[in-house]
């Protein structure tokens, strides 16, 4: 077989599937090419947790036989992908990015892996992550079994966390798409830092069975990909009710952006302070251009701001208490000391000392936040804000130097929208929107619960008109 050309590695899932159906190459050839590339280049970014190349070749062989018989399963059939290493793959190590779990093996695939398998998707590898998805907080990017996730655009910069390997793998063309998870920013941040498209689904839309639990009331699983369209196809494959996930909303998702409301009928909320005050100065021109693009697409732009709540304190209390309960056995054992980040060790231990009264007060405040976000979303269909307010941080930079409780930010704008959206369970889509200082900048769309088709429609139209998602780093 002749080597596949470089453009294949940066093709979308939809494009790759079309070429498979046209017999430009076989699924086995594609799985071998991506598998070899992931093995060769994944370690360069500390992105690879475990290669599954041999397993992928067997899956791909089955796909080729199906395609020969004319049996098609949709746009993910035969297309390679990777998963964050907090998702179980039967019979293979699932480390949760943490030394105490380096030898952990489960007997069943996570629900999302099983669902993608039914679509003929080909799993080529497990991808690195911040230890325990960052539970307890952490000071350095190196808080991971594989070391700091390195950014394909500049290896002196962080890939973002906690789905570091998932974002880096997509950005570097090591996998056309990957699954990540988000409790409070773990898809949004690495998508923005690595310049890929990331979708955080509505809480409860995607089953978490077989996924590491960090905070039961906040954990979500979603895709990182080159395009919003690919995110939609992946979400359609992994979404749906699951009686084995107590948080499941029991709802399906049909990817049908053509039936979402017309963009000209949408109101998009922005907060000018996000760009003019909070965003780092080199990012501002890029972000202004992104807002203008959405205006030109026909949406009505309205100015809004988040209601006043201590979002970060509420989220920290909830994730801290639920995470401490989830990891109580580890925290009380000597194994906790093997985590690479001291701040995380102490943060997890402190979580055990959160009182029931504080946790419940946080959950009461969360109820008010949900109501307030509902009222805000009655004024706009979508909120548009920078996904992150800086470009990717330096890989050795302390990450916990900022404000702790998230209060007293003035003007508020949407500065805490990622946390507010996670507390309210709302979906968000991150789109690459340009570059500042040679590093990607991401713009985020947050929608009402279960409004993924609206977000994806906006994202697809934005990506039809702009080509930032097609830029690729020098790998």
């Amino acid at each position: 077989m002749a080597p596949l050309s470089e453009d294949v590695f940066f093709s979308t899932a939809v494009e790759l599937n079309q070429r498979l159906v046209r017999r430009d190459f076989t699924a086995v050839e594609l799985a071998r090419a991506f598998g070899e590339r992931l093995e060769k280049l994944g370690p360069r970014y500390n992105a690879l947790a475990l290669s599954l190349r041999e397993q992928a070749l067997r899956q791909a062989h089955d796909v080729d036989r199906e395609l020969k018989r004319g049996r098609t399963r949709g746009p993910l059939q035969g297309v390679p992908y990777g998963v964050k290493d907090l998702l179980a793959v039967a019979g293979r190590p699932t480390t949760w990015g943490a030394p105490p779990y380096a030898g952990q093996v489960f007997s069943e695939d996570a629900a999302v892996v099983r669902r993608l398998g039914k679509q003929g998707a080909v799993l080529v590898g497990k991808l690195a992550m911040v230890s325990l998805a960052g539970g307890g907080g952490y000071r350095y990017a190196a808080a991971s079994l594989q070391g700091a996730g390195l950014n394909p655009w500049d290896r002196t910069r962080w890939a973002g966390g906690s789905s570091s390997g998932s974002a880096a793998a997509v950005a570097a063309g090591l996998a056309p798409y990957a699954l990540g998870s988000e409790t409070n920013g773990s898809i949004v941040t690495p998508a923005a830092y690595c310049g890929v498209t990331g979708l955080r689904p509505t809480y409860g839309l995607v089953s978490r069975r077989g996924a590491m639990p960090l905070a039961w009331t906040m954990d979500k699983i979603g895709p990182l990909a080159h395009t919003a369209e690919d995110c939609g196809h992946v979400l359609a494959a992994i979404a749906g009710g699951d009686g084995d996930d107590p948080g499941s909303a029991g709802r399906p998702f049909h990817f049908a952006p053509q039936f979402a409301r017309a963009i000209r009928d949408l109101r998009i909320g922005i907060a000018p302070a996000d760009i003019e005050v909070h965003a780092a100065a080199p990012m501002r021109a890029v972000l202004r251009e992104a807002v203008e693009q959405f205006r030109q697409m026909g949406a009505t732009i309205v100015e809004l701001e988040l209601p006043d709540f201590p979002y970060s304190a509420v989220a920290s209390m909830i994730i801290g208490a639920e995470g401490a309960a989830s990891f109580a056995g580890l925290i009380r054992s000597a194994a906790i000391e093997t985590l690479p980040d001291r701040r995380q060790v102490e943060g997890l231990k402190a979580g055990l000392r959160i009182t029931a009264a504080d946790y419940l007060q946080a959950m009461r405040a969360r109820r008010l936040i949900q109501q307030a976000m509902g009222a805000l979303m009655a004024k706009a269909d979508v909120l548009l804000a920078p996904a992150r307010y800086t470009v990717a941080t330096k890989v050795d930079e302390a990450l916990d130097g900022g404000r702790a409780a998230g209060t007293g930010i003035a003007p508020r704008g949407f500065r805490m929208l990622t946390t507010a959206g996670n507390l309210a369970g709302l979906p968000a889509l991150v789109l690459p929107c340009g570059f500042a200082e040679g590093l990607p900048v991401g713009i985020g769309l947050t929608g009402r619960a279960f409004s993924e088709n609206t977000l994806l429609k906006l994202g697809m139209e934005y990506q039809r008109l702009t080509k930032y998602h097609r830029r690729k780093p020098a790998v």
Partner: protein
Amino acid sequence: MSEARRMTRRTLAALLGAGTAGVAAPAQTQPAAEADRLEAEAALVRNSEAIQKVDVPWDTEPAFRFQA
């Protein structure tokens, strides 16, 4: 943690409580560890104080049945 088993989120949670003891702890610098501990404790206090300042109406129940 290498025993294979059927997995639900409940069993995962139970699993987290087992089998991780006995791994040797790496050497640490005591003053640095103490500073991290104090910082983590201080964050708990700050967060608690911030949440107590939220004006929560008396009839607000916690978001137990959380639905987006």
